[in-house]
């Protein structure tokens, strides 16, 4: 719980702590909730309420790569709905789901701030612009190839 100690002196520390936990462990584990409540002098219900309020916090670990796909208006104007359908088909995954092999989680989001170069996609925190179906497939194929190369070593 060094993460908690690191942030405990900040005011309103819960969000920074949750971000740090998720960064380290991939999700907010159920077991963390009573610990956080104890450390921050909150009720479990308070902590649970915060974790469940925000779209970003996940209760289970995501796939190896998190694909955030924008489905807000400026991206819609450039085919975001079709791109999301394409991604679901090409990865065989539902929105908010993870592929069977654990490689990709697909997260629809609202706006990545790249609305003049739409459709926009963010993969593992890296933003991509003007992503059509072909570019999407190339990006995901690259990541699979990288993963395979790593696994082979």
């Amino acid at each position, binding site marked *: 719980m060094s993460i908690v100690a690191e942030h405990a002196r900040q005011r*309103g520390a*819960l969000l920074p702590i949750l971000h740090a936990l998720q960064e380290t462990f991939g999700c907010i584990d159920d077991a963390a909730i009573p610990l956080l409540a104890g450390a921050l002098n909150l009720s479990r219900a308070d902590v649970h*309420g915060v974790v469940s309020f*925000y779209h970003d916090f996940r209760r289970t670990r995501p796939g190896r790569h998190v694909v955030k796909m924008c489905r807000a208006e400026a991206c819609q104007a450039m085919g975001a709905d079709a791109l999301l359908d394409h991604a679901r088909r090409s990865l065989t995954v539902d929105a908010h789901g993870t592929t069977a092999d654990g490689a990709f989680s697909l997260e629809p*989001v*609202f706006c990545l701030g790249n609305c003049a170069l739409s459709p926009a996609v963010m993969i593992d925190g890296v933003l991509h612009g003007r992503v059509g179906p072909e570019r999407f497939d190339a990006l995901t194929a690259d990541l699979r190839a990288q993963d395979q190369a790593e696994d082979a070593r």
Partner: protein
Amino acid sequence: MSHRLTSIYVPRDAAALSVGADAVAAAIRAEASRRGLPLRVVRNGSRGMLWLEPLVEVATDAGRVAYGAVTPADVPSLFDAGFLTGGPHPLGQGLTEEIPFFKKQERLTFARCGVIDPLSVEDYRAHGGFRGLENALAMTPAEIVATVTESGLRGRGGAGFPTGVKWNTVLNAEADEKFVCCNADEGDSGTFADRMMIEGDPFCLIEGMTIAALAVGATAGYVYMRSEYPHATETLRHAIRLAYDEGWLGENIHGTDRIFHLEARVGAGAYICGEETAMLESLEGKRGMVRAKPPLPALQGLFGKPTVVNNVLSLCAVPIILDRGADYYRDFGVGRSRGTLPFQLAGNIRQGGIVEKAFGVTLHELLYEYGGGTISGRPIRAVQVGGPLGAYLPPAQFDLRKDYEAFAAQGAMLGHGGIVVFDDTVNMARQARFAMEFCAIESCGKCTPCRIGSTRGVEVIDKIIAGQDVDDNLALLDDLCEVMLDGSLCAMGGMTPFPVRSAIKHFGEDFRPTTASPSATGIRAGDAP
């Protein structure tokens, strides 16, 4: 005798990176070393001509010369063409500041964005940075507030509230502690100006917030960043560290006894946290539930203390006002809309990006003279101005002047200056459905009309799209909109009816599939069976 190194600028703005700017910078460095040509690569912000990204600039005696959009494969031919001295090349755009899109702008807030190295205090200083703060350090709080009030600056986050009036309330509040909070949640689709300022000129925001703190007597501040902007957050945190190192933040600002501490905090993917009271709740580590007003955040804000909450662009307008004076800023604009607004052209637009203009420019000018029409080459059918809660406007309203009052008179709003363009393949019933769906997903849940009404709205529009009892369901939808307008605590529920009603009003044919245009059935021209 040594030559000055040629400077090459390759943006590090997230939009530029999203189309390969890092690879271009690497290719330029590699090619230069292969040819034994020493040069200096500066990673600047973006000039805001996003369709030209990655836009590479070369500093020449005549000024900076632009090439775009550059791919790594173009780099050898750029060297062959002598781009280091501004030589001609098919990607050449001439002098950056002579590009028509750029030349006709009035860049006050974005003056340095894309020009300087965003993480160099020295560069910032050399381009007029911290002059406003130096002036403010020699003024009384009341004088600073008066200057901002006289400038006519109004909040750029959406509501357009006079910034000086808000500051004055905080200044006059008695408290042991006060805060300045910057709203960098920028959740509206079609907006990216906050992000670009933070990535391209972060010291400007730091300076603006410090001036606000001096004006109201605050000693600590927070920037509420959205989690969708990891690159901007990293840039801002880096800039904050540099500002501390060089004495522009902390215990003794610029050698005085004035104190201001600043920290960036990150949200967690909730649109409603852009609403200022929800943002404050979130900063306190709670669920982002909207608070009832009063009390105003200016009196009881963060941790119950008097708090200035301003948008990034409002705070970034402050340094130039304190540097050049209230009159200088107020002389731009029309009526009660003073100064400039960085408009953002987005969606299906040929030339998307930042257009900073004085208020009073028309939508038509922005869409055609700057934007060059759609990128698909098809006619523009609709634009949404002011984010997901903004109205959809048809071409008949494109002569609308961009100022707060002219828009309000049309039941529309300027919001954060985002303009999202759709061509004639758009189905407006689907856009109306999305507005309701967005509200259903992003509602904080406090008011029934917003939470339940939006879910019902989606269902009703689905029935309309399916052609069921269209007249009755349209009437029901209108009632639902009325209830949301009247019974919602904040603009989330209260303004979601704007895009819905404007879509019905101006594009009614899309809601009547029997008499509909091909687009209303979702069949696009060209993919008929």
